[in-house]
């Protein structure tokens, strides 16, 4: 599990951020006391990634970042409410890997974290094949395979199925799927989702998969 250190002076924000990262499957560590030796405290945690605020009570995030850079190559993402391009440039100059504005768009934040971690920790990268009940999704090729048979799905349909696989076993509200699609630049609405669901079911039955996706009336779908 990747360990992410959060440096943030607002208590409410850091608590929620911790919960959010935890839900996303990371180990999140909050450093409470930002008065002194912040860099040491960060390094002691041996993090895979640092989320760093810029406006801090004692010193600013840029300083912490440049000090951290002297001793480590740990990826650093600035999260801040300062939002002009100059700030962003400063962040990159002192060695930050990315820069995200507050209030952050949560999926974007998670995507950037995942992206950076994937790049840095190459060898631990997640596999491109997901399996559930003997059905395999190949995320690189966009192919579903089951018992020697396989079928290629269009991008939108594959993304929907991928999201269902990721959340297998849970009831997934329709609106969650729609939001997920929007975060991936596929702007589907309620009707289009229904159409896509029907098509996915048809295509799955072509390779012998029946009743994989259950419809929970008024709640959503379940794999």
């Amino acid at each position, binding site marked *: 599990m990747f360990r992410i250190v959060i440096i943030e002076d607002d208590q409410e*924000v850091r608590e929620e951020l911790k*919960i*959010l990262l935890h839900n996303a499957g990371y180990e999140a560590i909050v450093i409470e006391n930002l008065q002194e030796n912040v860099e040491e405290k960060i390094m002691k945690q041996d993090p895979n990634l640092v989320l760093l605020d810029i406006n801090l009570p004692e010193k600013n995030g840029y300083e912490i970042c440049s000090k951290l850079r002297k001793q480590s190559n740990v990826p650093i993402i600035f999260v801040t409410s300062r939002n*002009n*391009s100059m700030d962003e440039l400063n962040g990159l100059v002192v060695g930050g890997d990315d820069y995200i504005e507050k*209030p952050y768009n*949560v999926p974007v934040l998670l995507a950037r974290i995942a992206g950076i971690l994937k790049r840095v920790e190459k060898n631990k990268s997640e596999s491109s094949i997901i399996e559930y009940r003997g059905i395999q999704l190949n995320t690189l090729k966009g192919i579903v395979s089951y018992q020697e048979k396989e079928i290629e799905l269009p991008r939108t349909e594959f993304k929907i199925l991928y999201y269902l696989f990721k959340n297998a076993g849970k009831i997934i509200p329709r609106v*969650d799927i729609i939001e997920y699609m*929007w975060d991936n630049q596929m702007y589907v609405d309620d009707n289009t989702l229904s159409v896509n669901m029907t098509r996915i079911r048809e295509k799955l039955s072509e390779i012998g998969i029946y009743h994989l996706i259950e419809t929970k009336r008024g709640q959503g779908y379940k794999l």
Partner: protein
Amino acid sequence: MNVKEYILEKTKYILLFMIYHVFLYIFLLAMQIASNEIWLLILMNTGIGILYMIYDYQKHKKVFIKIDQLMDKLQEKYLISEVIKKPKTQVEQYYYELLKKANKSMIEEVNKVKNSQKEYKEYIESWIHEIKIPITSAMLLCENNKSLTTRKIYIQLEEINNFVEQVLFFARKENVSSDYIIQKTVLNRVIDSVISRNKQLFIQEQIQIHTSEKEVTAYTDEKWLEFIINQILMNCIKYKNKRNADIVIDIEEKEKQIEMSICDNGMGIKESDIGRVFEKGFTGSNGRKIGKKSTGIGLYLCKNLCEKLGMNIQIESKENEYTKVILYIPKSQEWQELQKNRNLTKF
């Protein structure tokens, strides 16, 4: 100053000259001097008088031309008293000193206003950073506790955030040079980021969005462009038609610039209103129609920011059919500079 004005100004001297010569004529006649000789004298005097006036006129004219030229070259016109030569005559000197004093007090006044404006801008910026923290934590709270209610709260938070941004950019629009960086920007990414930021709103309002897949780059500031597109999309939502609302965002590459068009099928703009939509505070009949309060700031700000980024913005519409906003974004850095300077000299 022309000859007529000059003569008009000197009328009383000319009159005095004539009266004097009438008296002189009578006086000399009484002294039994021949009328011919007197006329000769008068003629000579008149000649000298006219010569002097021509000389005097030329001299004044030269001074005026010189001051005009100085004035043209000067960027801050109010500094004119610092650059003109100190005059020689008493009246002129008196006015010269007066002008200097007036300018000095004016400059002090201007500086005071500038400072207070700067202070205000700084205050607004820091206030915005402050307000964004509770917005962030509220949004995170919603995200961590997803339910129907928190989704609705989230949409409200997005709206609050949009308004806050508007204030920020309004504060920034005056002295912008330090607040933006022009660089190669992938336009599709900017569009996607705006849509993703407001996705809950779009989903709730059941708006279809179609974007082009082809990746296009241009020279602009990402954050500013994001703000501009956001304002336009917010308008699309605000003035949408009830059913089957959709928005088409298209990017077309032209020789020198990129044309980005955002077209909705909303209520459109009246022909009589369309010329004024970029005016500050203009709300038009649509603003009144939708019941929600519109501020008349959004498009005004867009236009203003576009000009500073070397971009152009245009709007086309047909009432009850569509509204199409077109952004012209520079494709190269040189073109961006050129457009920017052209835009700035318009004022």
